[in-house]
């Protein structure tokens, strides 16, 4: 009787089950099983792999620093590639970024430039490095070109976004004095984004340094070539020495750029 007279209070579970989420989870699991079967990943593979991994690690210690001249030479070339690629890339990114900013450039200019930036960003720097190795031959030059493309893709995208966020009041004020396009860019646009550009530059130097240690894998100069050669010769103790050197270099660069960033704030 009481059930009929009193409407049953709506029972609300404190933690209601989320069926949409559960179904999504099941779909993900199903996909994972399908993908793993496609790639032929099995437990047996894992077990033999672990045995091989132990052998591999055993051959990596102790690291062999006997050929340190080769190591230092490769590291220095990597740093050179990073420095040159960053400087050239930044110099190119300034005009490209300005041309891609929709509040500064007309649409017929910003559209194609944006597409160009998207292409630069989409291709992995190692793939670009392969193409440049074929075009300009083995050596550091190909690495520099490849990282320039990567830098332009990354920095000009962020720079264009920064330019699109500027206050147009200053632009109008400078334009009202009768300034030409160049003067507007120099005195109204660039001062508003200069500090962010410096930040991007520092970040890009950091990431170019990381990437310059790798372009050598496809023959584009730097320590990567030494690393790949050592791998191919099964010289695993030298490999571990190179890896330690690369990690030390990257950590050092991260430390320095962190200090500079803290000092700029």
């Amino acid at each position, binding site marked *: 009787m009481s059930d009929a007279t009193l409407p049953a209070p709506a029972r609300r579970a404190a933690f209601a089950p989320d069926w949409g989420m559960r179904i999504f989870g099941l779909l993900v699991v199903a996909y994972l099983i399908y993908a793993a079967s496609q790639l032929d990943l099995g437990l047996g593979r894992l077990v033999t792999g672990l045995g091989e991994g132990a052998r*591999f690690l055993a051959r990596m210690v102790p690291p062999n620093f006997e050929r340190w001249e080769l190591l230092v030479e490769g590291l220095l070339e990597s740093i050179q590639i990073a*420095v040159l690629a960053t400087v050239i890339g930044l110099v190119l990114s300034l005009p490209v970024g300005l041309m891609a900013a929709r509040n500064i450039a007309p649409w017929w200019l910003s559209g194609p430039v944006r597409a160009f930036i998207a292409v630069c960003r989409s*291709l992995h720097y190692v*793939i670009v490095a392969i193409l440049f190795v074929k075009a300009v031959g083995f050596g550091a*030059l190909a690495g520099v070109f490849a990282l320039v493309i990567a830098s332009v893709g990354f920095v000009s995208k962020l720079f264009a976004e920064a330019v699109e966020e500027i206050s147009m009041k200053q632009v109008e004020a400078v334009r009202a004095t009768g300034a030409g396009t160049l003067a507007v860019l120099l005195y109204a646009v660039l001062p508003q984004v200069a500090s962010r550009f410096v930040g991007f530059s520092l970040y890009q130097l950091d990431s170019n340094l990381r990437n310059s240690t790798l372009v050598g894998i496809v023959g584009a100069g730097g320590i990567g070539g030494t690393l*790949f050669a050592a791998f191919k010769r099964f010289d695993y103790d030298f490999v571990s020495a190179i890896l330690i050197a690369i990690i030390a270099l990257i950590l050092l660069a991260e430390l320095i750029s962190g200090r500079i960033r803290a000092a700029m704030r």
Partner: protein
Amino acid sequence: MSATTHDTLAPLRREWIRHTPAERLTRWLAFLIIVAAVVWAVQTIEIIPEFLADAPEQMADLLVRMWPPDLAAYPKTVHAALMETLHIASLGTVFGFVLAIPLALMAARNICRIKALNFLAQVLLVASRSVNSLVWALIFVAVFGPGPAAGVFAIAFRSIGFVGKLLAEALEEMNPGPREALRAAGAPWGAEMLKAVWPQVRPAFWGVALFRWDINVRESAVLGLVGAGGIGVVLEDAINFFQWDQVATILLAILAVVLVAEVVVTRVRARLL
């Protein structure tokens, strides 16, 4: 009196300089260091002038050989490799998350109270991040032999550091209130994690997952260059056989997948967040 009238005009005659001498000095020093680094790099880098001179010619030759792209090769070899690349990226992302979540919990100072474990987790995360995915791939090719298994592990191990760091940061920014309430009600550790911690970090979790998957699609395309499966293997073969029209097809396919992945991620993120 005359001195006071003199003083009122003094500020007008003062010369204003934008930066203090110390600031100007650091600016000049920074500039000097940059110039010195560039000069050093230009002077000592090994660039063969003949190679630089005929670079435009070689580039033009390359483009001519690439055109038109051999689209007939797509269904034969490229499509399967492309799918393999996507599988490697997705499996690697999920596997990376499985490994990264315990490390993130260990690294977050408000979840794990043991200082030594925080430090250990941070060291592992930094180690994962400072080794590039191609180097991870080289290592796992040595361990598992050539094939997509090495690629999945390389992507996973590279993702750990990135994902773990961002998840640990999200965990540390969490509001402690819900956890304390659940603990006061006598909830066990697992319930506390599921009902107080997870709902708070869920947006960050999905954001990081999408972001990393997007990066992994890009990176898994090159793993094949060192033998770790995916479209890179086909690319390497085509380059070694100088089949530049096929190379063009493969590059177009990679470009398309990367752009589609980026659009998908932006769309899903806009709907989720």
